[in-house]
């Protein structure tokens, strides 16, 4: 992965820089009009600002020299009118500039989210939520400040820097040269310190991600933490990151604290030179006293943009560092997506599954999770996958929905490799109930439909009924509209699983993948659900991974996995007759069962 957020990456790569720049430019261009109008308003503000002293001068001259020849009311009125204009444009440039920056942030956030939706599970396996979050919040904010205030100040500074030196030259060329001499090292300072700021800010943001992750994990795992009375341990873990973040911040501020005042010192040096050199030139009559004063005033005016440079550099470096972090996510390829070899030919999914010598290894794992698997599941068949913990049952199902990519042409649905199916069509055709239920903090209904269109309430009810959950849901205060807690914290384990089953049923899939989805359900409910499923999915291909052998007895075929390999394959009776692994398992269950009968 080009930019895994899992590792605390503290330097910006060229690719990130490039993607980041393109991203910013694209979004700025989208708001080009606002930036244009904002700049225009800004110029008008500056013009009005400059003309106000002139009106003042006019008033004084009128009173002193002309004895009130011009009615003072007019002058006062002019002043007020100009102020009103100033106020209007000031309002406008703020609205345009800051509005545009919010729009940029909004657009980038949407783009980031859309990309996150495309990133494969293998990215999320190693990603830290807190870090991703901090990219979408803090880093976006830094980019926003850069694209509003940073840009604004940058423009302002450039304008001043372009206008003032020529004015100086018009007074005295040689004095200008002397005065600007101390400014020669400025670009170098800005460059060097700027790079340091960039690097340190990156570290600050990375450490912010760590901090967020710590808080995220603390709140997410609070039940376990409290259960083991280990709050102090996890608070300590947090404290370390809290302090680390502070220290990184202080390291950044150190540079910032040097940068800003050092610009002022350079200006001070220039002023001192003009005092001595200019003063002596005035003494020698090379320039007039007025020139000397005017020169000083111009230098003074240069003071503001010089100070602003520090600001701008800071905003710029932070902005680009953050932009690179955002770009880091965007530059991570969405591996599982439709591509050139996707076959868009329309086809009704029959549900014929074929596995051809499939070997699959998770990235970073020493041993393959699946090895040389070969299977064929005819349409409408029910196949059970059993085997010990970690045998690869879930992996097989995940490959079928293409959460991970199997090697080409090893996993086929209706004769077409799953990698060549349009991804959305493939997944729509499959009803997948993952082993671990994930529910959203949303209504029950929304959790069932997950935005699926054209699903009426009745359909939702029916699905819930088949999953044996409808009665319990109707007992809740708001029925289908009850909002459940994050990850379904306020439902029982079995209720959560049944909700996930309803979610798959409502999609009326051609292939149903049930990954141990009845593990938290009692026997009575289990039987009822299986009954309901049998009706709902009469002609659909079903693959179920499970640890309960009673459930699989009637399956058309049973696949026994061990260490990623198929060790046995056949119908219940065949496998029993073989007297192998499955028969052993079954005997154990039978033994248990006999025990139960007592």
């Amino acid at each position, binding site marked *: 992965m080009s930019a895994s957020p899992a590792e605390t990456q503290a330097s910006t790569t060229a690719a990130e820089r490039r993607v980041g720049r393109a991203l910013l430019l694209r979004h700025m261009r989208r708001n080009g009009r606002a930036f244009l109008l904002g700049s225009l308003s800004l110029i008008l503000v500056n013009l009005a600002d400059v003309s106000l002293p002139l009106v003042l001068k006019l*008033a004084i001259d009128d009173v002193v020299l002309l004895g009130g020849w011009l009615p*003072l009311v007019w002058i006062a009125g002019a002043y007020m009118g100009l102020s009103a204009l100033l106020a209007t444009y000031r309002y406008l440039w703020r609205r345009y500039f800051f509005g545009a920056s*919010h729009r940029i942030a909004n657009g980038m956030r949407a783009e980031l989210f859309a990309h996150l939706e495309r990133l494969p599970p293998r990215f999320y396996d190693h990603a830290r939520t807190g870090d991703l979050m901090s990219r979408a919040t803090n880093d976006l904010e830094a980019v926003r400040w850069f694209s509003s205030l940073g840009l604004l100040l940058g423009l302002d500074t450039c304008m001043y820097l372009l206008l003032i030196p020529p004015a100086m030259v018009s007074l005295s060329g040689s004095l200008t040269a002397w005065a600007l001499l101390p400014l020669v090292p400025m670009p170098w300072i800005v460059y060097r310190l700027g790079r340091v700021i960039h690097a340190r800010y990156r570290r600050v943001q990375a450490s912010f991600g760590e901090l967020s992750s710590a808080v995220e994990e603390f709140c997410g795992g609070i039940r376990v933490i409290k259960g083991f009375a280990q709050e102090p341990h996890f608070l300590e873990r947090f404290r370390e990151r809290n302090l680390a973040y502070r220290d990184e911040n202080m390291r950044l501020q150190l540079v910032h604290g040097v940068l800003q005042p050092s610009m002022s010192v350079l200006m001070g040096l220039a002023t001192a030179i003009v005092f001595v050199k200019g003063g002596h030139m005035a003494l020698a009559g090379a320039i007039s006293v007025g020139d000397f004063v005017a020169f000083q005033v111009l230098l003074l005016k240069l003071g503001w943009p010089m100070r602003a440079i520090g600001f701008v550099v800071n905003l710029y470096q932070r902005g680009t560092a953050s932009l690179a972090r955002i770009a880091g996510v965007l530059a991570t390829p969405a591996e599982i997506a439709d591509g050139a070899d996707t076959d868009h030919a329309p086809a009704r999914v029959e549900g014929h599954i074929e596995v051809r010598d499939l070997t699959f290894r998770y990235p970073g794992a020493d041993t393959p999770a699946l090895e040389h698997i070969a299977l064929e599941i005819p349409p409408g068949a029910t196949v059970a996958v059993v*085997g010990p913990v970690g045998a690869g049952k879930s992996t097989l199902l995940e490959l079928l929905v293409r*959460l991970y990519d199997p090697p080409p042409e090893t996993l086929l649905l209706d004769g077409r490799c799953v990698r060549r199916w349009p991804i959305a069509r493939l997944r729509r055709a499959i009803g*997948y109930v993952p082993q671990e239920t994930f529910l959203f903090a949303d209504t029950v209904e929304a959790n069932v439909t997950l935005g699926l269109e054209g699903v009426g309430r009745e359909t939702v009810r029916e699905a819930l009924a088949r999953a044996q959950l409808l009665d319990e849901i109707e007992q809740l205060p708001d029925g289908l509209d009850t909002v459940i807690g*994050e990850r379904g914290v306020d439902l*029982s384990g079995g209720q959560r699983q049944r909700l996930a089953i309803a979610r798959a049923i409502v999609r009326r899939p051609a292939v149903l993948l049930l990954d141990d989805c009845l593990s938290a359900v009692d026997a009575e409910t289990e039987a009822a659900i299986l009954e309901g499923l049998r009706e709902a999915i009469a002609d659909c291909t079903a693959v179920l991974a499970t640890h309960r052998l009673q459930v699989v007895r009637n399956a058309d075929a049973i696949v026994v996995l061990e260490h990623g390999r198929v060790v046995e394959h056949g119908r219940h009776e065949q496998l029993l007759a073989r007297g192998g692994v499955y028969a052993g398992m079954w005997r154990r269950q039978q033994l248990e069962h006999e025990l139960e009968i007592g």
Partner: protein
Amino acid sequence: MARRDDTTSHDDDRIGQAVFDAEIARRLARYLRPHRRLVLVAALATLLLACAQGLSPYLLGLAVDRGIVGRDGTLLWWLGGSVLGLELLAFGLAFAQLWLLQWLGQHIMVALRAELMDKLAAQSLSFFQRQPVGRLVTRVTNDVGAIAELFSTGLVTVVGDLLAIAIAVGFLLWLDLRLALLTFAVLPVIVAATWILKGRIRTAFRAVRRRLARLNALLAETIGGMRVVQALSAELPVFDRFAERNDEHLHAALGAVHHNALYASSVTALTGLAVGVLLGYGGERVLAAELQVGVLVAVVTYAQRLYLPIRDIAEKYTLFQSAMAGAERVFGVLDAPIEVRDPPTPRALPEPPRGEIEFDHVSFRYPPRGRPERGTEQGSERARRVYAIEDVSFRVAPGERIGIVGHTGAGKSTLIHLLARSYDVTAGAVRVDGIDVRELPQRALRRRIGVVYQDVFIFSGTVLDNIRMGTASIDRAAAERAARAVGAHPWIEALPQGYDTPLPERGATLSVGQKQLLSFARALAHDPPILVLDEATASIDPETEAALQRAIERLTAGRSSIVIAHRLATLRHVDRILVLHEGRLVEEGGWDELLERRGRFYTLHRLHGRG
């Protein structure tokens, strides 16, 4: 789509009163108190800096009058030297000021974050159930950040601005009383404008914060559930929902920009008005020879100086409001009542532990759930089960092994929550070793009870860290022993770095059964006097479970334990079985005894044997 709204949003709207700001400010100021000296030094540096910078025009005057006009070449050298010296001094001062203020902001930030986390650690589970994790993260990170920003950059500018205002007012009064009063005449208008706009600006900023928190909560949640979103091909609707919130936030932000810009420009316009009036009226007085023109110039200059800092404060208002809105939410978390607390004078558990548990007529109802945004008609008139647990009584003798069975949703896990005092009972009492759990320190209680929860949670960190959970007394050997007991040792060894293999958040690279085994090993390693297994073997194959069971029997001999299971075989060896139905204890007894009774257990058992 109806979504759970920010549960605190109603409170937000209620506390829109002005007193509230003052109170927040006062509370924030409290965080400055330990750093009084530092604040003083920073203020001094700011003052000196202003003086050092203010001296330059005076030196310039000297250079012109004495140096050039007075033809004193050496003085020019001296003056040049002083300018440079002053600037160097200013450099030191500016650096000191910046550094000190950042230090201040950062330390307050660290303190606030620590305080927040301490509070979260003390909060009861019901609190977390109502708060999306993403929102809490926003509180601890971004909201506190906004407050720190106020301390490190906002405060000093405001102090400086207030100083400038005071000076301007002083000079105005000294120069000409009537003109001064005229200048101040606009002030009430500005105050009024501030008053009118302030409420709106605050509302706008609150809306921004609230919507941002909502947006972030959704983002965090979706990141967590991305697999499901993708597997069910729900990317588009989920994106739409996100976009909706994203746009909601944008609108709030644009509203805030609008109000802020409006405020800044109205101050500009009013300043113009004031100066215009001054020009007209003062000019007439100069013409009437009642006033020197120099005074008028000075008054106008100072009038502008008076309003400039006011406008500056207005500009800083953004920062302020962000901080205030942030502080409000942070304090909201800090002030949230803790539902389950330690008693003022906790009792000590007897040593050595006996492992006795007693449920004495326990009833319990969960706190109400969040309500959807849109009103609802249906469901309300239906008969509802209000109590999750109703009048349950049983006793677990020291060393006894108890099994609990019942339909899904019967209230089995709830019983465990009550035992570990994650919630407080509504009626009745839960006793451990004869003491009501409400009279015990929570952490001491929980150290006595090792629970393997139904929802497994694996932390990022190594496998070993996950077994130890920070308990210093569990060394590598003990952790390994626990892992062996649950049969996790072989595959842990097979991981790239064995017990030191780092696991990602939530153990994403393990199979579900592996996670469950790990969490089992975690509980065993802690060697608790009371062991509670809530569906601890649900995702484990029968083979592994059988081995596991033998190991547990060995390990828990003489220890009280409660085992909850749907697979009845798991309960074959317990001493007594409790059957829970819709929150009530309906049957109780030994395996054979219950079978003979032909009640609910018998039905469950028969179904279990079907096939």
